[in-house]
């Protein structure tokens, strides 16, 4: 499964530019599903038929955070703005890859030491610029014109038990879902797999993906914090390697107790390690499903992840494998 993860995280597909990642996912799952479609916003929705007449939905978002070119100056330097929650601090020392193939590095303005210091203190997108090696404006506009999207350009690293890359948020969920699609032979319920668009700019795809489906239960799969690093948020008590988490709440939603209870039941039945999660910030696609139509019982299964929204997000491989087991268990046991 590590090769699948590497394949997915290597693709650059920020919010609204999910074409490349969607094509790869569609290719992976097509032979294993009964139906597959792309909806008006670009969500990839696949169905594996079950026997109970009930419907279960799994969601992972395809998009990743990124940047977009907003200005090209006379010397060929670019200005960018963020797509999703990408801190400008994360860009310092990072390399960017644009959809045109251009590669860029980032630095900070400052005409005096004092100016530079102040810019560094409260860094914003108005004080950083991107150098794509262009020689002048015309050259830059050929390589990355205004409106060109980009992402981090960082590589996948296999540290054994721990894996590091950009866009583990949320390609790790895409990988888990693809694996479930491939391994799942006899689901109890109809299982819908939604690979959603534009989560990072505000839960766009998941707000509408289930409108025509109205499943009995929706489970979003996403990364959560990894609060087990030195002096990390002490109010959160889960860790990497402790198993996928069953989310109780975050800022976006409070998981339906039905979903929490059912996940815990099947995890215990199959002896799968899980942790409970209360996240004091953040939100997932579960928020979109919970308020779709007349309402859907929704929850989230998370993969603890250190350094979320950085170019180097770290997850634990056992948590990933256990998440596959947990989702498979739920699909086989059914929502009731």
């Amino acid at each position, binding site marked *: 499964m590590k090769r699948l993860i590497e394949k997915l995280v290597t693709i650059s597909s*920020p*919010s*609204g*530019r999910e074409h490349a990642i969607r094509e790869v996912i569609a290719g992976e799952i097509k032979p294993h599903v009964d139906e597959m479609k792309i*909806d*008006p*916003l670009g*969500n990839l929705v696949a169905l594996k038929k079950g026997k109970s007449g009930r419907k279960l939905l799994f969601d992972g978002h395809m998009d990743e955070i990124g940047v*977009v070119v*907003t*200005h090209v*100056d006379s010397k060929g330097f670019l*200005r960018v*703005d*963020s*797509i999703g929650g990408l801190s400008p601090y994360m860009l310092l020392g990072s390399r960017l890859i644009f959809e045109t193939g251009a590669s860029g590095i980032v630095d900070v303005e400052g005409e005096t030491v004092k100016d530079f210091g102040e810019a560094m203190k409260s860094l914003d997108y*108005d004080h950083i610029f991107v150098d794509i090696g262009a020689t002048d404006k015309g050259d830059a506009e050929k390589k990355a014109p*205004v*409106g060109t999207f980009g992402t981090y350009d960082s590589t996948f690293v296999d540290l054994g038990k721990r894996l590091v890359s950009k866009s583990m948020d949320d390609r790790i969920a895409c990988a888990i879902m693809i694996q479930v699609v491939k391994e799942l032979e006899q689901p109890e319920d109809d299982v819908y797999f939604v690979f959603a668009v*534009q989560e990072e*700019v*505000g839960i*766009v*795809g998941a*707000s*509408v*993906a289930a*409108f*025509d489906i109205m499943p009995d239960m929706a489970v979003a799969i996403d990364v959560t914090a990894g609060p087990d690093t030195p002096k990390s948020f002490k109010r959160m008590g889960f860790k990497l390697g402790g198993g996928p988490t069953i989310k109780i709440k975050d800022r976006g939603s409070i998981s339906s107790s039905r979903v929490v209870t059912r996940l815990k039941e099947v995890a215990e039945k199959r002896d799968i390690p899980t942790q409970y999660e209360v996240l004091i910030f953040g939100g997932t696609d579960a928020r*979109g499903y919970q308020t779709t139509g007349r309402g859907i019982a929704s929850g989230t299964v998370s993969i603890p992840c250190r350094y979320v929204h950085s170019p180097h997000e770290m997850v634990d491989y056992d948590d990933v494998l256990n998440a596959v087991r947990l989702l498979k268990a739920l699909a086989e046991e059914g929502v009731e």
Partner: protein
Amino acid sequence: MKLERLKKLCELPGISGFEEKISSFIKETVEDRVDKIWIDTVGNLIALKKGNGKTSKKLMLLAHTDEVGLMVKKINEDGTLSFTNIGGVDPRVLMGKKVLVGESLTPGVIGFEAIHTQDRSSILKTPSMGKLKIYLGYSKKEEASKSHRIGDPVFFDTPYNEIGDYAVAKSLDDRTGCEVLIRVLESLDGTSTDFDLYFAWVVQEEVGLRGSGVAANQIKPDVALVFENTTAGDNPELPDYRWATSLGRGPVLTFAHSGLVLDKKILDTIVETAKSNSLSFQYKSRIAGGTDAARLARVISGIPSGVISTPSRYIHSPTSIININDFLGVAKLASILVKEGKVLSR
């Protein structure tokens, strides 16, 4: 006067929640040209111009009828009115401005302490909204209460004016969009499109994109084009890379804004259409700020949109400025897009 009807639209009072005058004016203007027209429960004005039946597709053109303004929050003992903002209003643009209060449109002014009596240190400081009051000429609460009450809408009182290629007015956001829709309808001149064409003049955009989702639920369009008025930011004190847009460079196209990345295929179609018709255009180069497109993406099964705007300086103030040619460019681009219908090919 180059834009008589835009003048009329801008001078009509219509803060969020009080858009009736705008919708009835538009209704009267367009009803002879459409096949069906109605005002829905929340106050959206929706019109259908039926297609020739070649396809079953639906295109929705959308603009919002509401403008930012104020609302009476309290009638004070001294007969003055305290107020809150409806939509995003910077208190700095309010001091010394003329307003119209209530459905009766009673003229008033927003006063502030005279410069003579202010401490040097407080000059140019931003007062909180709570410190500003509306003076209508009453001296007692009882007097003011006879014709006013808590909840009275307060409108900016700015006559529309044109100077050369520029127009100054309140509520250009989004009466320019409202007028674009009317002009598209007129440009069809009775001919029909290959698809059903819906026009939605929607309420309460400024307080949280509230009308557009309701309109979309009644129409269920395949694609929407949102016509907006957007921030210029081409102030001389800012370097040009910080300008969101600038006046005189043509219609503004949006690739991403708050809460949504706009559909790439629709954006590409708009860009190609502008280029092939030699129309100038510019991109909005800041992601901040949103439009009804963010709501449309989140209703029913998700409606993909394009956003085309007229740029405006001093937007959300009583005196905003547009370049008339930018506006005419938006109207022309809109008419071509509707006639060609390419934005519907998915």
